[in-house]
């Protein structure tokens, strides 16, 4: 049954957004130099290059294990310190604990931190302290504030005010309120967010390493820079194993926290 009368009216709703989308895409493609021919070329070049990188240089494997450990530790320390700082910021940013002035200022600070990519913090810290693990750990810790601080503050604000009042009514001071009323409440969330952040930090520590914080990221950058592609491939494999491993681990632990409330 062929269409008898076919009007284009029904597409009116879609045509304008579609044209705008296409125009913007075209314009951005010109800026990026991403025409369609180049696009497919680029992807195939990338794949072909991957072929060139094979096989990995296993002789470099042992000497990369230590940098890998370093990366993991940097991510771990960044997460630990970052979580501690974030809890402080979250307490200051919760409207049921802090006074409005402190709260708003902390919230603004958190929002600004959230919009600064970690890499910029790191570059500035490297400029201040020189290369090494310290700028990496500090950058990751500060990076936690934006995400964990906001999430935790939101959770603290959802705590039943009656519970805080109950502790205050028996004469508890602010610190007791925090220790007995707030921390146990947010602990499960805190742990699962921290684990999630640890996953992100593992990736970031590789990225930061490539800029100068050391670790396996530096090995990767160095191998690419020295055009030792087989060696770089080894680093890639180690990085992927690292990311995959921490992801599984954090998934497992988070599930445990969720189901059993363990670790609290």
């Amino acid at each position, binding site marked *: 049954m062929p269409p008898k009368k076919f009007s284009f009216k029904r597409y009116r709703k879609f045509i304008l957004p579609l044209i705008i989308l296409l125009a913007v895409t075209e314009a*951005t493609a010109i*800026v990026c130099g991403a025409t369609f021919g180049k696009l497919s070329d680029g992807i195939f070049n990338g794949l072909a290059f991957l072929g060139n990188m094979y096989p990995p240089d296993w002789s470099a494997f042992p000497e990369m294990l230590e940098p890998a450990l370093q990366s993991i530790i940097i991510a771990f*320390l960044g997460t630990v310190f970052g979580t501690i700082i974030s809890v402080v910021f979250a307490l200051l940013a919760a409207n049921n604990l802090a006074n409005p002035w402190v709260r708003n200022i902390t919230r603004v600070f958190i929002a600004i931190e959230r919009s600064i990519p970690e890499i910029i913090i790191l570059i500035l810290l490297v400029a201040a302290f020189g290369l090494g693990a310290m700028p990496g750990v500090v950058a990751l810790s500060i990076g936690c504030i934006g995400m964990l601080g906001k999430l935790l503050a939101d959770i603290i604000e959802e705590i039943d005010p009656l519970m805080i009042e109950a502790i205050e009514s028996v004469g508890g001071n602010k610190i007791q309120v925090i220790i007995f009323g707030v921390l146990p409440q947010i602990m499960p969330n805190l742990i699962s967010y921290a684990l999630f952040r640890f996953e992100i930090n593992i990736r970031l520590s590789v990225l930061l390493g490539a800029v100068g914080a050391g670790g396996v990221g530096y090995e990767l950058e160095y191998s690419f820079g020295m055009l030792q592609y087989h060696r770089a491939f080894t680093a890639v494999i180690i990085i992927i194993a690292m990311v995959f491993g921490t992801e599984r681990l954090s998934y497992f632990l988070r599930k445990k926290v969720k189901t059993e409330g363990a670790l609290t």
Partner: protein
Amino acid sequence: MTAIDFTLPSKKFKDKTTVFAVGTVVVALCCIYTNFNPLAFFMEFHNVRDLLGEMLPPNYRTLTDDPSTGYAILQTLCMAFLGSLYGGIIAVIIAFLAASNTMPLKSVRMIARFTLSFLRVIPIVVVILIFVIAVGPSTFAGMLALVIVTIGNFGKLFTEIIENVESPPAEAIYSVGASRMQVIRYSIIPQILPTLIANMLFAFDVNIRSAIALGIFGGGGIGFKLQLAKSVLHYKDVAAIVSLIIIMVILTEKISDYLRRKILGEGKLK
């Protein structure tokens, strides 16, 4: 559950102290291993002060004097936009191949799922280094890297979104003799479209940040400018660029937030 089921305070205290002590020792060992002294950050805080002294006040003249800075911002935005768009579209296509309610062949589903979980674990820095060598350092390389990373980050989520759609409408459409394609078109796509678009906007947010980092590794854009200004030690320029980046990130976030609310709000269900 027994009637008396609680831990004695003394035991609880002991448990907590043990966990705390072990944790502290582990952290301390890690600190020693990496030569990281948390106090050093505060003891040597004068370094930060010195740097800030170098940076302030920001030299905004560099933005007006050098029009390429504005262009670099544009490049970063374009990179993030195209990366999210192409990456999102490819992610949707792979997600359709990976979802059990759209793809009947198990083998295809397995391949698609494997591809997605593989792309998921590759960090962005690996991807950009590969593309910089494959196509040369440029915005184009950055964009390609963002495409790959977007597929990895959002492919699995999209698969889950597709698999979680209501299945009864699909059954009704099958019952009038429709084909699988028609079920996808009339039941699955209308249900997932708003969520997909909202997630693509979110991908754009994430990609803006990534795009800045990519610039430092040869992906072009404002990140490259920043790296350049830093390597010639023009810290006042660095400060200007950083403030510009913050404004850009906050602005794009607000815009995409607004659009997202509009899209999700439009199709709000009871």
